[in-house]
């Protein structure tokens, strides 16, 4: 797994995500993760 340790805003990534979330495709799905678990833990759990 390639997980960044810092959160940095990137203008290009912002534009990509904004447009992608707006027009979600049939080949993708979005799942929100609850805050009580750490991102990394939930990420692994979701993917497994």
């Amino acid at each position, binding site marked *: 797994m*390639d997980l960044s340790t810092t*959160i940095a805003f990137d203008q*290009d*990534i912002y534009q*990509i995500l904004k447009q992608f979330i707006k027009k979600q495709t049939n080949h*993708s799905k979005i799942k929100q*993760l609850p805050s009580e678990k750490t991102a990394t833990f939930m990420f*692994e759990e979701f993917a497994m």
Partner: protein
Amino acid sequence: MLPEKITFVDIETTGLRALYDRIIEIGILRVENGEITQTFQSLINPQTYIPSEITAITGITAGELENAPTFRQIKTDILELLVDTIFVAHNVRFDYGFLKSEFKRENISFSSRHFCTVKLSRFLYPTYRRHNLDAIIERFNLSCKTRHRAFDDAKVLYHFYTKLQQEIPLEKLEKAISHGLKQPSLPLNLTQDDLQQLPEQPGVYIFYADNDIPLYIGKSINIRERVLSHFASDIHAPFEMKISQQIKRIETIPTAGELGALLLESQLIKKLLPLYNKMSRIKHELISIRSKINADGYQECFIEPVTTITPDDLPNLLGVFKSKKQAKTFLAEIAKEHKLCERLLGLESASWRSKGECFAYRLNRCNGACSNKENPLVYNMRSLMAFSKSKIQAWPFKEQIVIEEQALNGTKDYFLINNWCYLGKITLDE
């Protein structure tokens, strides 16, 4: 049946870019039913600078070109030779592209069927690795009086074609030429196999030049289709032409879907800094417009350079721009459109700052927030509305999210995202 009328063409130029560089020499042999019927050769005054490396390769000096005719002066002679023939050259995209550009400068729309002797050689002799003109001269024991001179090189092509007629069965040669007339030309250093192996799925592709220097990074939902489109249009596009001339290999990184390709492309461009992704690869120092409520309760704006933005910055961030000029232009536009106070937006010159109302107020272009004549709540609300199109959107989810993309083969990519920041991904093969 073999084509009846063929012109074998070679040119020397001041560089590789058909739109900007110029032809300095042309050599043409017009062949009808196997016999040379007309020839033409001329130096051409490019009316521009001749780089020393071009003189080193061709031996053509600026002094020799000074009294040579311009393309305009010989365009009719060239057109008469090329009309109704099939245009043949070694790496035809180069010669054909340059001639098209020269004619276009003369308001002549030149178009001709053409095929490439590199491609012909590749098709007929697939076991050989090298198909450049020197390799062909050596392989077929051809003679060339002076290499890198247009007429002598064009003559080599004619002799190569004649050799093929002697060595290759007619049916096979016809098939090869017919194939060549239909297919877009491959870059000189790539093989048909290189293209055949490209995956037909989403992902990122990287073009490399000599010494693995990255030339260009692109993404597509169909890598193969997109890469082929680069080479189909290179005759017309100087950018594609440059890539075709320099490319040595292609690396592909398939992804499960489009989002993976977009994110990976953006990351790789910043990491590898390819030569021809100029706009995206520049690491701009971003310029932000931030807000702060002043002592009178009005929202004031500040333009500040910024290297990183954290999610905590987002509430006060009114916009992110690639330059200070772009940020100021935006502020000037919304000041005019929404009658916002130029002083509070940070646009007013220092000399006016000590005075009561701002200059725009005197011109009736400001509602008076600068001198407490407008209710701060009303002004701040109007200001927020004006910045709605530049402000980074609020994160539309409660917490972090995972986006799953699935490829047709079952492979899944999972992307962890929070507050518009991409945290990482994992890939699971089915």
